[in-house]
């Protein structure tokens, strides 16, 4: 027998559904009765870490979230920033990690679907997707199948809906072996005075369900409940939802059309915890009450209980509120797009949500009891072995040649052309993409804004190696690197979204990492004077009981207003000088080279100089206003050696080669492989070199002439005039182009 929705729950049921004894006690006390089984389902979902942010919320308050561009900060489906001329952008990033491990194709696809819905519920037309993917070791067959499935899932969904995937980051590390990360970002464009929000307001207004029917897919905790409490054997239900990008496209067009026609008061995607979170959160924001009759929810399966209907995570569904006299028009639009719309309830006085099924009230809860869960108290502690992690054996490094170290870095799994991945994504649909997938950041024109010459620059960045060794610096550096990438493409950073992927919050060391990373992100944002406008926390990411490296992913948007040029990020000719802007040396702690050399991440990462970062952005701004052409690329993972080589590998110049001269007095390892941010490479015709040097001096960033391009087809490293390393570009290119291909065979 199944447990009836209206049956009073017990502490055992609460425990089975993951509601802690404290939380259950709190609920019983406030209600002055035990919640019904259906109500318990609602608490189990809304009190889950994923929905409640009960471990993270107090710490997230540290983020700077205000600024003159901010039209909507965190707390809505997505954040919104003013970009001028009466227009705005809405963007957010979200994780879909666990589903993508269980079922890579559907897990990743529904992740993309969910984040796009978050953005178009704000009234914004999605114009760009990005993603950040972290996978385990490619030696494992499971990893290769996850990579293949995830990439196909992202591609199939975004390509079909017609939103270009314009940039991304992919990295491999064994810490993700059993817990890959799939973080999806969407940005949408909207008029700044036409923002829609998740408000269920106006007593008497109708609550309308639109989109796909509800099935049992993704019913959170329900399978567990069945096992514990049911004597009737039920087949295992899929815990991963199935995506349908075609329905999403219809939902997108219908929703935007209905918004434009002025038919919608409030709207929210049925994402995590489906109907539960959308109804309670919309009532919370509007401080209203709702009455919902579940018999009117379109169902894909028969005999679904209120518990299942409230917790289903079936995809491509929306909850919206409209005035009664607008219903006919609304229905007509959704019918045009071959979608169902059903009135399932209304906005009422008071501040409770009352839910009926088969003529019986099965849920009657005060809104804030559900939406304001008790916060979890999470102790924090500095990892006991942190000092050991910081030990870097310089003496052992000296025993190895520069050539050997170059070979380590150039054969690393993470040193690879992203072509096998990015060619599976439509990066151009929408006709806005001017630069992207292979550049430092994507560049999109805004053809929608009449008369505007502004463009958007977008990037995602994170450095988990650094973050594991020094989480505060990791947070800082992720933001700093993103900012440099935006500046290189001609933009000024305007705001970020984040996706904070960590281990278990019940592990005090993880909580310490979490707090530190937030501090670092906040410091960098404050230095850049940009807000955090949206974000997502994903805890419980572990491989065999060991937390993943802390991975605070940053999605950054920048605005290009003062240039029409699309910068080159590769060598444009074989007769150019190469200037290093910024410090000649970088820190080795946590660098790719030392990680590979010692076969573990080690050393204390050096702090990013945030004042220098701002001066570097100033330099980039002055540079893009010059009249002559140049190539520009930032130094990050792998250091200067990798950055120079990337400029050669992406170059269309036949037989391109280059020299790198180790400056007098510089430490060769720190010069070639150090990863301190910000360091930027500029390649320029020799005739313009002094102008660049003047710009660097004026901006207060150092510069060093470190080499030149040539037609030798080789990378040569010189020290004191002597050749100390030489590698053919063509041979490295072969490895670089083919490195990720085995994942797609």
């Amino acid at each position, binding site marked *: 027998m199944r447990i009836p929705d209206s049956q009073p729950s017990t502490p055992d049921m609460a425990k089975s559904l993951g509601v802690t004894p404290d939380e259950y006690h709190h609920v019983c006390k406030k209600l002055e009765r035990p919640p019904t089984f259906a109500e318990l389902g609602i608490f189990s979902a809304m009190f889950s870490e994923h929905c409640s942010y009960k471990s993270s919320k107090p710490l997230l308050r540290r983020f700077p979230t205000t600024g003159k561009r901010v039209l909507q900060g965190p707390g809505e489906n997505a954040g919104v920033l003013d970009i001028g001329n009466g227009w705005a952008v809405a963007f957010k990033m979200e994780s879909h990690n666990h589903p993508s491990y269980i079922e890579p194709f559907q897990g990743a696809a529904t992740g993309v679907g969910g984040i796009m819905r978050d953005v178009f519920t704000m009234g914004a037309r999605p114009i760009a997707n990005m993603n950040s993917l972290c996978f385990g070791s490619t030696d494992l067959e499971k990893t290769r199948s996850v990579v293949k499935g995830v990439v*196909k899932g992202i*591609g*199939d969904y975004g*390509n*079909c*809906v*017609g939103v270009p995937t314009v940039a991304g980051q992919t990295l491999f590390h064994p810490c993700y072996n059993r817990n890959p990360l799939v973080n999806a970002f969407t940005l949408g464009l909207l008029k700044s005075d036409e923002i829609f929000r998740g408000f269920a307001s106006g007593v008497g207004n109708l609550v309308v369900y639109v989109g796909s029917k509800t099935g049992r897919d993704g019913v959170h905790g329900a399978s567990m409940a069945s096992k514990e409490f049911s004597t009737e054997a039920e087949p295992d239900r899929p815990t991963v939802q199935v995506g*349908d*990008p*075609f*329905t999403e*496209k*219809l939902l997108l067009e219908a929703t935007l059309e209905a918004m434009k026609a002025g038919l919608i008061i409030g709207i929210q995607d049925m994402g995590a915890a489906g109907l539960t979170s959308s109804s309670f959160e919309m009532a919370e924001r509007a401080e209203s009450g709702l009455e919902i009759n579940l018999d009117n929810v379109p169902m894909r399966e028969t005999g679904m209980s209120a518990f299942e209907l409230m917790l289903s995570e079936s995809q491509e569904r929306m909850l919206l509120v409209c005035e009664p006299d607008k219903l006919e028009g609304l229905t007509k639009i959704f019918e*045009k*797009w*071959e979608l169902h719309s059903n009135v399932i309830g209304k906005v009422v006085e008071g501040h409770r949500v009352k839910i009926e099924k088969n003529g019986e009230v099965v849920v009657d809860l005060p809104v804030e009891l559900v939406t304001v869960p008790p916060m979890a108290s999470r102790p924090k502690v500095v990892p006991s072995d942190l000092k050991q992690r910081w030990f870097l054996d310089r003496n052992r490094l000296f025993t190895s040649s520069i050539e050997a170290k170059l070979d380590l870095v150039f054969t690393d799994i993470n040193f690879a052309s992203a072509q096998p991945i*990015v*060619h*599976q*994504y*439509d*990066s*151009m*649909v*929408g*006709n806005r*993409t*001017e630069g992207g997938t292979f550049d430092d950041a994507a560049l999109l*024109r805004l*053809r929608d804004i009449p008369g505007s010459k502004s463009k958007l620059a977008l990037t995602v960045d994170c450095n988990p190696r650094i973050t594991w060794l020094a989480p505060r610096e990791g947070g800082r550096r992720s933001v700093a690197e993103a900012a440099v990438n935006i500046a290189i493409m001609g933009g000024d950073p305007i705001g970020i979204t984040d996706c904070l992927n960590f281990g278990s919050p019940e592990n005090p060391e993880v909580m310490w990492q979490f707090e530190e990373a937030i501090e670092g992100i906040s410091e960098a944002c404050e230095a850049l004077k940009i807000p955090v406008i949206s974000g997502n926390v994903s805890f419980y990411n572990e491989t065999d009981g060991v937390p993943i490296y802390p991975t605070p992913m940053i999605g950054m948007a920048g605005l290009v207003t003062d240039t029409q040029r699309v910068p080159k990020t590769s060598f444009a000719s074989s007769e150019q000088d190469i200037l290093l802007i910024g410090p000649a040396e970088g820190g080795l702690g946590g660098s790719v080279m030392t990680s590979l050399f010692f076969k573990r991440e080690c050393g204390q990462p050096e702090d990013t100089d945030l004042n220098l970062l701002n001066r570097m952005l100033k330099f980039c701004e002055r540079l893009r206003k010059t009249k002559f052409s140049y190539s520009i690329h930032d130094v990050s993972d792998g250091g200067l050696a990798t950055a120079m080589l990337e400029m050669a590998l992406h170059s269309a110049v036949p037989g391109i080669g280059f020299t790198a001269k180790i400056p007098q007095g510089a430490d060769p390892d720190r010069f070639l492989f150090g990863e301190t941010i910000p360091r930027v490479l500029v390649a320029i015709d020799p005739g313009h070199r002094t102008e660049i040097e003047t710009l660097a001096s004026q901006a207060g960033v150092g510069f060093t002439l470190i080499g030149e391009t040539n037609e030798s087809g080789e990378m040569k490293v010189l020290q004191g005039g002597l050749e100390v390393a030489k590698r053919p570009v063509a041979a490295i290119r072969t490895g670089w182009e083919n490195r990720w291909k085995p994942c*797609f065979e």
Partner: protein
Amino acid sequence: MKAAVITFPGSNCDDDVVYTLREFAKFDVTTLWHQERPALGEFQLVVVPGGFSYGDYLRSGAVAALSPVMEKVKEYAGNGGLVLGICNGFQILCEARLLPGALAKNESSKFQCKDVYLKVEDTNTPWTNQMKPGEVVQYPIAHGDGRYVCEIDSKSLADVDGVLLTYCDAKGKNLPEANPNGSQLAIAGISNKARNVFGLMPHPERATDLRSQHGKKLWNSLLSHLNAKGGNA
């Protein structure tokens, strides 16, 4: 000059084409919903744009080909009206039997989005008259089902009527490695016998004021043809 761009459920390049025709070719553009059965006589051009009509369910373009508006498009094409199908639009025109052949899953079985080189095979058409024979143009592709299959097992291009564009390398050679989807005889775009219906997998609208800008040659050909026709009439 008036153009109609058709939107099916799942079309997603319709707006890109509308933008390009308006901004670059100065067409007066109307969008038509697939359920409509309008008279098309007033239009000088009808475009069936790219996307995933009906989610590519069943077969790419198969469901859209049965839409009410396609009856009118067939009538319009039968009267000599100019019809252009891009990507999914090409698939729909093949499914509607307005163009010969069919488009199957890419040989790699993967979706591919990248710039490709195309060789101009015939310039005596409304679509290519501003190009030179053998000229190489660069348009991007973005498709999973773009492998063109001829109706008869032709061994040479000379056996196939109406081929306007073939996949090639930068120098105009039809090498296998320059054929991104395994299309038979490297066919990228084909027209009907009367040359008034043309379908191609690559996207000229994405290469008009961005990327190579070679898409302009197609729109200029079209304008030149229409202007000449207008002048004669």
